[in-house]
């Protein structure tokens, strides 16, 4: 087997598993779960190998059917795509282990199979988006991703999920079609859809058809902005994320939004290039959007009484942090953004999964009902606290490192205003995360030291939570383990 075929084999494995699940309907569900786990382990192994390969040996590309890249579809394996597919599969595995306990809250037993079909197609499309080096192919994978995410939201047979899924599908479709319009304009000006070829000829095209390129950039940024919940386009996010089952919210908030942000990075840096962006004042626009997102997202989060809606608004603010790193257009900024994508992925997964466990056992989503929860569900609340402290940005957690990096990147460009906004936003995080921790651990003395009140939770739900807690802390203590890979990923865009 050739190493160049590994990315395609990853995709085929996911597709194969998604097709196999309906066939195993009559068998005990455990068989499906174990097979799915094996598939994920195989993909993890091959992604790890690819990550090692691109960093040690070098990037490579694969063209489908032997057609040259101009006409055909090209998969490009760079340190960037290898790193983020690896991160995605690790997060997905943790969520998968958690959901294989009976924590798929609100989904009927007969729907489990369908849920996992959607999960595997979701992973397929995200891998495809990161591997592909073709603008139109990216569009096709984006559409697969948006249909499956909408379906995974509406899988619960509850009234409100249908309306929030409908709103999500409409917003998403406006986003995808805007993106496609951008692709059309770029194709018109350059004659390619292959990203590397477009980037070679875009300077010439910009000189002769500036109008096309400007509109294309606007359409693509807005389209991907809607999908990534960048501030003024975030309205679908809190509804969609709070009405979805907890495991899906974790996938949506921790992985799916980030994939769109990564596509945005690809578009901004690989397709248009820094020169054109600076001529069009794009960094300033994105900086303003990210600043408002950081402040207003946190303020909205304070007002929420439902924990999952609060986490949704917190995601809006966190997207602002990542966008801030991207829009600095510098090596340090992009490094901070990539690190925050990983650390926020870990923290949001931990938050959604621990909240999911609490909702599963206590059937409550109100922030006020968290009284004394720390004594009833010590592991879930413990991991929640670690992740929440990480969100605030306390040292020893990965959140501290990403905020430190962001701060350094902002100072390098002398944007003192954004350092102030960063600090204010962190303080706002304190306002909505800390009361929950205090309520859970420091109030309601009556639950103290009574072991009998501790809930018995299945091991499949506890293990991933503990794993996440350990990962958050160890990434905060030893960020240098993953930093070389992140820097290699940044170097594919800024050398």
């Amino acid at each position, binding site marked *: 087997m050739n190493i160049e075929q590994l990315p395609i084999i990853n995709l085929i494995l996911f597709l194969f598993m998604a097709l196999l699940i309906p066939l195993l309907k009559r068998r005990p569900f455990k068989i499906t779960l174990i097979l799915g786990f094996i598939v994920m382990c195989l993909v993890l192994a091959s992604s790890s190998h690819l990550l090692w390969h691109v960093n040690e040996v070098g990037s490579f590309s694969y063209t489908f059917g032997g057609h040259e890249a101009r006409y055909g579809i090209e998969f490009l394996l760079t340190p960037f795509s290898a790193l983020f597919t690896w991160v995605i599969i690790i997060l997905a595995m943790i969520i998968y282990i958690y959901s294989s306990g009976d924590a798929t809250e609100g989904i009927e037993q007969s729907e489990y199979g369908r849920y996992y079909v959607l999960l595997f197609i979701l992973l397929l499309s995200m891998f495809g988006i990161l591997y592909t080096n073709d603008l139109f192919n990216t*569009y096709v994978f984006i559409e697969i991703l948006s249909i499956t995410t909408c379906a995974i939201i509406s899988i619960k047979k509850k009234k409100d999920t249908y309306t929030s899924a409908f709103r999500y*599908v409409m917003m998403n479709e406006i986003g995808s079609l805007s993106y496609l319009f951008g692709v059309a304009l770029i194709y018109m000006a350059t004659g390619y859809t292959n990203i590397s070829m477009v980037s070679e000829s875009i300077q010439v095209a910009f000189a002769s058809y500036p109008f096309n390129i400007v509109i294309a950039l606007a359409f693509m940024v807005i389209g991907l902005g809607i999908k990534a919940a960048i501030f003024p386009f975030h309205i679908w996010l809190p509804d969609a994320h709070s009405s979805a089952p907890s495991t899906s919210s974790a996938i949506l908030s921790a992985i799916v939004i980030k994939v769109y942000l990564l596509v945005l990075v690809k578009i901004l840096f690989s397709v248009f290039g820094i020169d054109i962006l600076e001529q069009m004042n794009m960094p300033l626009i994105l900086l303003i959007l990210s600043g408002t997102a950081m402040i207003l997202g946190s303020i909205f989060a304070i007002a929420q009484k439902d924990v999952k809606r609060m986490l949704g608004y917190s995601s809006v603010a966190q997207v602002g942090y990542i966008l801030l790193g991207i829009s600095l257009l510098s090596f340090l900024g992009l490094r901070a953004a990539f690190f925050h994508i990983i650390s926020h992925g870990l923290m949001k997964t931990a938050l959604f999964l621990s909240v999911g466990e609490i909702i599963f056992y206590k059937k409550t989503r109100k922030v006020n009902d968290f009284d004394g929860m720390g004594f009833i569900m010590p592991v879930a609340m413990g991991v929640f606290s670690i992740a929440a402290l990480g969100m605030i940005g306390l040292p020893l957690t990965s959140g501290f490192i990403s905020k430190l990096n962001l701060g350094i990147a902002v100072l390098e460009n002398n944007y003192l205003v954004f350092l102030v906004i960063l600090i204010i936003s962190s303080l706002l995080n304190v306002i909505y995360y800390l009361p929950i921790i205090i309520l859970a651990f420091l109030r309601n003395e009556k639950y103290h030291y009574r072991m009998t009140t501790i809930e018995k939770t299945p091991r499949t739900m506890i293990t991933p939570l503990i794993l996440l807690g350990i990962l958050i802390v160890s990434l905060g203590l030893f960020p240098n383990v993953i930093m070389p890979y992140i820097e290699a990923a940044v170097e594919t865009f800024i050398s």
Partner: protein
Amino acid sequence: MNIIERILENINYIGAVALFLIGLRIVVLHSNLIKRIMGINIMGTGVFLFFVAIGNVSGGVVPIVGANPEGSTFVNPLPSVFILTGIVVVVSITVYSLSLVIRIYQNYNTIDQKELAELISEDNNEH
């Protein structure tokens, strides 16, 4: 006269953009859910028309090798191929969102966005 000539030259593109904007208006402003899905379709048609218009070469012939005399100019076939994929994608989105509308109608007995919003806020107040 010059302006009219330029408009006539670029009528394909102008039509495509107009369709896109009409569709966008319907999606954003209409309160009927089925009309909003139609809006998505109109938007999609606009983008597809744009793509096909890019591929057109004036005086070009159908790009089949061997069927035409040598040296004739071909129409660019690549955008049409893209659009075949695009049409399939928009059809699947339409099917999915229509099925959602059926579920919404079964639960709320209305497909009007404003009435839905009232019903949902009533639901939330009861809890």
